[in-house]
């Protein structure tokens, strides 16, 4: 665990030592601010639910951007071999890098906390859904990050990693929109697989263990796959 945290700290600091984190966070905040605050006073409701819907969309390109280089870049430059010859396990490397990306996501979400704080001074804001909304974003974003780490473990090209994880995340996100065109039996399964189905429940203020288990399962399975993918270089 100590080694995992050391890797996480190093990676997390790395984000802020390059302009990447600042560009991603600033762009994210500008887009969020524009799309959330423009219609806000027209709707005239003391609610930040619209913010979660927007964030869910904006996470789609943001999360792959944060993870695309985590393993792919190390592979391309060959530093992965140096890293893996150190006294750390493959799993610790994967989890450490994942935690660093999760930390950056937390910083991103922390920045948007100014929105509900602002809204609460303009009207009576129900804080329950605000907290569960952030939990939803952390879980959905966490799942996207795990998929990003997985995609990054498959290739040594950052762009390929970005598009691969972007497409997978988009598929998980968009699939619920096609449910009316599917047969009933398939629709139930596909609906359960979609991010949006589980995310919306949390975003409106309902914490259901099924939704939490779902996101944790996606995270867990993606990270295990990434670990096996990294490990496969020894026998493939």
């Amino acid at each position, binding site marked *: 665990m100590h080694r995992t945290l050391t890797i996480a700290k190093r990676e997390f600091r790395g984000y*802020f030592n390059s*302009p990447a*984190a*600042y560009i991603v*966070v*600033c*762009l994210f*905040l*500008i887009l969020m*601010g*524009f799309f*959330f*605050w*423009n*219609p*806000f*006073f*027209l*709707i*005239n*409701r*003391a*609610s930040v*639910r619209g913010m979660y819907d927007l964030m869910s969309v904006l996470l789609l390109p943001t999360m792959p951007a944060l993870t695309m280089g985590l393993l792919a870049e190390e592979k391309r430059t060959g530093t992965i071999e140096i890293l893996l010859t150190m006294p750390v396990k493959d799993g610790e490397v994967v989890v450490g890098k994942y935690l660093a990306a999760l930390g950056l996501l937390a910083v991103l979400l922390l*920045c*948007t906390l*100014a*929105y509900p704080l*602002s809204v609460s001074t*303009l*009207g*009576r804001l*129900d804080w*329950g*859904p605000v*907290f*569960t909304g952030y939990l939803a974003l952390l879980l959905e974003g966490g799942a996207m990050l795990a998929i990003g780490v997985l995609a990054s473990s498959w290739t040594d090209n950052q762009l390929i990693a970005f598009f691969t994880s972007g497409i997978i995340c988009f598929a998980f996100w968009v699939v619920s929109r096609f449910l*009316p065109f599917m047969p009933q039996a398939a629709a139930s399964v596909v609906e359960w697989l979609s991010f949006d189905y589980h995310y*919306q*429940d949390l975003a*409106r*203020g*309902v*914490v*259901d*263990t*099924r939704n939490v*288990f*779902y996101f944790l*399962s996606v995270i*867990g*399975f993606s990270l*295990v*796959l990434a670990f*096996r993918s990294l*490990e*496969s270089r*020894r*026998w*493939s």
Partner: protein
Amino acid sequence: MTKKQQARAAKESAAFLLLVGGILILINVLGVFFHSRVDTTDKQLFSLSKGSLHLASTLKDQMEIVAYFSADLPPPHNATERYVRDLLLEYKDASHGKITLRFVHPEKDEDKQAAERDNVPRVQDQKLEADSFSVQEGYRGLAFHYLGDTRSVGHIDSTDGLEYEIAQLIKEMSGEKVKIAVLDGHNEAPQQQNPMMMMQQPQGGPHMNSIKGYLPTYDVQEIRADKEIPADLKALLIVQPEIPFTEQELRYINQYVMRGGSLAIFGGALKVDMAGGAPTASAVDVGLNKLLDKWGVRLEGKLVADAQCGRARMQTSLGIPLPVPYPPVPVVSFTEYQRKHPALFKLDQVGLPYSSPLTLSDVLKSDKLVKRTLLANSTKQSWLMEGPSIELKPTDRWRVPGYSGPYVMAVALEGKLPSAFAQAPASTPEANANAASDIKAPERAEKPVHVLVFGTGYFMRDEFLPDPSRGQRESGGAVALALNAIDWLAQESDLIEIRAKSVEDPALAVPMNVKEAEATIRRAVQEQDEAKADKAFKERKQAMAAWDQKKSTYRWANTLGLPILFALFGLSRWRARKARKAGMQL
């Protein structure tokens, strides 16, 4: 690594992944059966009431709910769609697969036609575009398909009470009806013309055919009280009785309430003869006060007249009917406190024709098991009409002896009421007295009961109600009051909670100085003080400008301020690192 070792490692890896995948799938499948759920919203908005859950979970066949919502509805209807979606998902989850949902954005002609077929009409909404309003057409309704039957909520204007409306519809379609009864055998007068309007043709019985039409989810029976009243009746309604009750009947009614039945008494101290468009009223004593006295309420044989009243047609000498104020039909306005009672939910005011005043006593004041709520009273500008024959013919000249109001016109009692005949012997030496005293009842209601007492029941009778086939939405306050009252008496308390649920997010708080300026404007207009109004208008304009400035500050501080702050943090960090690097020596 040899090829054999590589193959073995690959197999082990695949088996490990399968194992992990299997465990995760198992956890998720188990989670479907063993899960917990917490609704963190203040008002438990996304938790269906027990009544709705029960309805959804006991559906016997597949129900399809189609939500027709146009994609670009203007505010606030765009937020309504989200609430409807959430609410329907709750129904779906509770139905164990019996409810399927379909969300349609009617853009194609075939979808629009389907919406029209499902009785979801196209509605017009105002939309704000730049500085002007435009009219936009769209759909925002629900259709329910169940066993070949289709019902709809044609257009959803507000989310208030929507869960109740849906619950009622599902209940109506799935055939689970609540049994209530109207007491028969105490109405002798044939139905006659209502001087205010002619709604229905004369019919026999207790004259409640219209109200029955408004109660599709109820099994409304007509019963007599000369024998034990079935305990499975959720409520017993006594509407404008005119023939006295025997002691035996009163004891059976008391017994029914003590066993947990709800009772509503609508009138019973006045009899109005509406023959020939010149109605007269006279006091009657049907004996209900023997019950009510014990519960601290008494129906008086007088009539409440109010300056705040409805209108009736007065025949002029030319034969042309002229609408004139009609004080025997007081229009009762409800206070904010009274409107919180489920029986008055969403009601601003209602006309209560030919009402007796209620006198309240303190017999149950110290009884902590009983709660009494004053539901309706006349205005201060009201008075009482009394006498052996009270003239009620519409006229433009009413004799007002002086205002003596307000008078109580409706009361609700809830709790474990004491028996009206707990230990009292039969009050008359009639032949049935012995038999009556044999009718046993607990000394207190076995469970909390609901009792409503209104000074009148005429607002529930056919003469005063529109034809139910014209729809509830056209029916106005009288029907709403009657239905609310019956719901409160007969429904499960959790269904009542649904009606009181307000689900919209609270609006942004308008600054106090804007509100104060608006109040000053209203006062100035009432006082016809032009200078004061002008000053208040200017103050409001300034306050609104300040409010707009505040909005703009919030918008830009959040949109640009936050990213700029974050960028500045990055810049300072970069400069600090650069300085640190410059100071480093090898």
